[in-house]
């Protein structure tokens, strides 16, 4: 904490700007329409196997507490590349990488309404 306070003001502003720019870029990557489409997709199509309320089915439950132990990268890999020899298919032909991370965030948040 002390270390941060000792930083020159300009550096802090620069760092803050960087964060803001990064967030802005991430937001811009997925259009609002596509987000709505993805949320519907998550609920309805992922829901076909994982349950509309993500309590599981043929696929595992996707509730926040069940995902806690897993890194975003691992989950993204599962979404994009599937799990061989199981019913989980690779979705990369229809879900982009940043969209997979968006979906993971929604799952971790328990799909609170946007």
């Amino acid at each position: 904490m002390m270390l941060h306070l000792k930083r020159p003001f300009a550096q802090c502003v620069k760092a803050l700007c960087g964060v803001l720019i990064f967030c802005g870029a991430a937001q811009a990557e997925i259009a609002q329409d596509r987000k709505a489409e993805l949320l519907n997709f998550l609920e309805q199509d992922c829901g076909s196997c994982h349950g509309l309320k993500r309590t599981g089915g043929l696929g595992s439950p996707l509730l926040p507490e069940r995902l806690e132990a897993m890194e975003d990268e691992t989950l993204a890999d599962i979404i994009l590349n599937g799990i061989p020899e199981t019913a989980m298919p690779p979705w990369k032909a229809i879900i982009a990488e940043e969209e997979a991370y968006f979906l993971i965030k929604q799952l971790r948040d328990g799909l609170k309404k946007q």
Partner: protein
Amino acid sequence: MKFFKHLKKISTAGLFGSALLLSACASDGLVRGTGDMGIVIERATGSVLVVDNTKDQTITRVNGLGDLSHASAVYSRDARYAYVFGRDGGLSKVDILKGELVKRVIQGGNSIGGAISQDGKLVAVSNYEPGGVRVFDAKTLEMVADIPANDGSKTVGLADAPGNIFMVSLWNDGEIWKLDFSKGLTPAITKFKDIGTNPYDALISPDGRYYVAGLFGEDGLAKLDLWNEAKGVERILDHYGKGEQKLPVYKMPHLEGWAVAGDLMFLPAVGHHELLVLDKNTWKEVGRIPVHGQPVFAMAQPGGKRIWVNFSVPKNDTVQVIDVQNLKIIKTMKPGKGVLHMEFTPRGEKVWMSVRDENRVDIYRTDDFEKVGSIEATKPSGIFFTDRAHKIGL
């Protein structure tokens, strides 16, 4: 004379009374047959629409059925009650005449479908969690038998067979079980092992003779002849995709119903954008029909003249129709995003399609593909008409 006068009075009162009663019943929807009725599952809102497939209208909505993702339904033999199997383990009994939920029990943690026995007295539910099958009294929904599967295996493809038998497949263990309730509520269980990897669904032929399970983990299907059980399970079509790169299966195909036309039978291939055509006498492949995407349902229109096919995401805005005489696609329709299920009227002049993402059920004439009606529905999925009450395996 006095007596007759009295009698007349009574009968007038009686007539008047029954007219009143009749109109009261009619307003409740009680005085009508159920033969042209059905239900539409509204998967996200835990409700079902009770519908009329003569007038192409919704009669009423019944709420409070829980999580209905992947829900299905069967009917009591008087075609008055629908038993709805919900994802959350709920088993609901709906009186479609009165338009009300009669009873609902949570019978498991996570379920996938069910069946009703030949005598109409037992309703069986297939469970993912805790696995196995549970059987209920059709009248009271009290549990009468609990059949756990090995290590809680998920069960799929539950279907009724003649003789108060339920057939079921074990996803995890690759087995088919026959649960025979002909001698009472403790079933005689016959297990057929090593039938193949990951059976994902199954169907039973309309004569109740063959139980066929589709395999996800390998090519082919497992067939059991219930008239000659001692022969055991035979593998059919076990090389249909050999050496070919499988495409991602975004949604499991369904084997509900028996898409048979003449001697030909039609099945969705798994991981290939094809319908498999086989000769139902020899069980050998006689052809393949390339289609628009991964088929989910391949359903024969009553009479068997045409096969209707829908597809998994991202191609689920499309339906294709195949003429069985030349095995050609004669129509490609785009009803809208999320065509999840189709149901034909009992004699096949119309087909209802749920278009999930458009919140509609559309109704088409089967002979000229003309759209003749549409009803509003919230995220509709399965459509179940009452003629299922009198069909084996549905």
